[in-house]
């Protein structure tokens, strides 16, 4: 049965309004249905015969995985573009590939990408040939288009359809500079993910990490950044000085990280725009374990004075530090709750590394980890309901618990996994894994079930991953 889209969502034009009101990705994406499409559109174009050779048909539903078809995004006119592919037609395939890559990596969906699907006509974007997709057992359909404006900017439309219902579920449009074409694909994947999972989006985000090369006894460690899918990789430091533990500021304008630049470990705040950096504090002791407050106004750091390490807070713009802990043990790390009211941190004041929670002003410090072994590097989920940490009992493993220390469970089981950080939506934990003997490191992601674990592709070995928020 073929049904026409629900009237309120019906597409009569191909996002014509998007061109009338182009939006840059620095602004929230305009939902096309909020603007009145106009002008004649090729919605009535007959659909081309769909390639019926079942090279790689969509597989039926397995468990709750939704089968999602993502054909090439057609273009109205093949024009040259500076984006990957060289022209809008090739770019349309690359866009669909990026969306496919995003959606296949989180265990929720069973996407089928553009290289295994027939092409669609431009006019089909807003008028899908649902029977053909049903024949392929697709449950969901992501279609879109790409167009190049004379100034080089690209308009990308993204539509999500429920194939069984034959109806549109969501649509968005993005206007991007050619070099930002991948962001349009990530935004589209985010729209699909959010609409189908009910979770907040996270693909359009970046990761800061430490790129590692060289033998175990002489590792070169460079600060590096990349998109959430590993693309747009870039080294920030040249590796002359060991760099460690980077953290993106919530607005992505800065990275706080540790460097042995002048011989001792100190935290620097690196400004991505200017390429300048400064010390997080002029305090005399070595500083490490930088963490941003959720609003970006403060940085937590740990400083050792005469061998005793405590946690301090300093305004992100510089200024006087406030000492938050005062135990004779090592107090280190620290991660704000999403509302900024509390801080979870690590201390060995009891004799071994354990996890504690305190108010943001340092009062009311309480241990919450009581399950044996050592508990280190706690990180509060952006959703507030979980704390990820490294559990040490022989091997180092990633685990989560609730903010009271209950419901502890492991997410990984390997020789050495450490330093969990969260995806912006709090559904995925990212960490790094060290191989026994070789010391080789790699970044991994695991979902909260612990079942869907995958290694991130990085150009070289990688450690200390830190996810930033979803880009605006």
């Amino acid at each position, binding site marked *: 049965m073929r049904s026409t889209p629900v009237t309120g969502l019906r597409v009569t034009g191909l996002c014509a309004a998007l061109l009338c009101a182009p939006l840059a990705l620095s602004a929230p994406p305009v939902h096309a249905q909020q603007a009145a499409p106009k002008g004649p559109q090729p919605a009535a174009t007959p659909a081309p015969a769909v390639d019926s050779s079942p090279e790689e048909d969509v597989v039926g539903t397995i468990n709750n995985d939704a089968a999602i078809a993502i054909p090439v995004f057609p273009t109205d006119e093949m024009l040259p573009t500076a984006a990957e592919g060289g022209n809008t037609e090739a770019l349309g395939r690359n866009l669909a590939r990026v969306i496919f890559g995003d959606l296949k990596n989180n265990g929720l969906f069973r996407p089928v990408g553009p290289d295994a699907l027939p092409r669609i006509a431009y006019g089909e974007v807003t008028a899908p040939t649902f029977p053909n997709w049903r024949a392929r057992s697709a449950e969901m359909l992501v279609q879109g288009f790409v167009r190049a404006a004379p100034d080089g900017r690209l308009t990308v439309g993204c539509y999500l359809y429920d194939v069984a219902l034959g109806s549109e579920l969501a649509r968005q449009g993005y206007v991007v500079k050619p070099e930002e074409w991948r962001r349009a694909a990530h935004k589209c994947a985010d729209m699909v993910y959010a609409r189908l999972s009910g979770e907040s989006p996270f693909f359009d985000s970046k990761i800061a990490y430490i790129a590692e090369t060289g033998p175990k*006894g002489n590792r070169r460690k460079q600060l590096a950044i990349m998109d959430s899918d590993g693309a747009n990789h870039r080294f920030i430091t040249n590796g002359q000085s*060991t760099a460690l533990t980077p953290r993106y500021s919530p607005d992505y304008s800065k990275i706080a990280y540790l460097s042995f630049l002048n011989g001792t470990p100190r935290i620097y705040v690196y400004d991505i725009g200017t390429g300048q950096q400064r010390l997080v504090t002029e305090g005399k002791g070595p500083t490490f374990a930088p963490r941003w407050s959720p609003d970006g106004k403060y940085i937590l750091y740990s400083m050792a004075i005469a061998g005793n390490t405590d946690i301090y807070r300093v305004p992100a713009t510089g200024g006087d530090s406030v000492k938050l802990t005062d135990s004779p043990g090592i107090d280190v790390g620290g991660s704000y709750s999403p509302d900024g009211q509390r801080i979870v941190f690590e201390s060995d004041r009891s004799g*071994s590394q354990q996890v504690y929670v305190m108010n943001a002003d340092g009062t009311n410090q309480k241990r919450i980890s009581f399950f044996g072994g050592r508990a280190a590097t706690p990180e509060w989920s952006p959703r507030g309901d979980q704390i990820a940490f490294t559990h040490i009992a022989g091997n180092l493993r990633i685990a989560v618990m609730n903010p009271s220390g209950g419901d502890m469970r492991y997410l990984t089981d390997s020789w050495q996994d450490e330093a969990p950080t969260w995806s912006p939506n709090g559904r995925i934990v990212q960490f790094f894994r060290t191989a026994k003997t070789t010391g080789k490191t790699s970044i991994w992601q695991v979902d909260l079930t612990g079942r869907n674990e995958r290694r991130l592709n990085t150009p070289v070995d990688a450690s200390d991953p830190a996810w930033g928020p979803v880009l605006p």
Partner: protein
Amino acid sequence: MTKETVSVNRKITTALLLSAGLALAGCAGTVPKEKDLPPQPSGVTTSTTTINPPPVGQPAGPAPGTRADFMASVLADTILFDTDRYNIDSEDQGILQSQAQWLARYPAARVTIEGHCDERGTRDYNLALGERRANAVKNYLVSLGVDAARITTVSYGKERPVALGSDEASWAKNRRAVTITVQ
């Protein structure tokens, strides 16, 4: 670099022991336990020809006050720690006393104490623990009369292992504090 430092130091210590005429029969092939030996009398340098024979015409031994002299004069430049510990035990005290004696002889000399950890800990904690170990050494040297202003500390956490295996023997070697002379 630290790796060479340790092994060189071991050789030189061996040479010292031989030259001092200590009973080492049967010790061939094993590294003498430096910690069991009394501190070297001051002024002793490696004058034997067991290793690194000095070129003819050159004065024997390293120049006084240099890093080579330090390495030749002390029992060891490195002390080791148990897992997560930073206490200075009696064996460590012998080593650090020999370092303090050398520092007393060369009042202008300065040292940096490096604190290190094994790989089986989290990165941030190991930086803090390395700092604690380095400071434990510093505090002990100060207690022996070395001016605190002559001693700096730096923690490398688990970033600079000298033993590269993933086993107890390697980890034991990496949990260390190393005294480096600064010229």
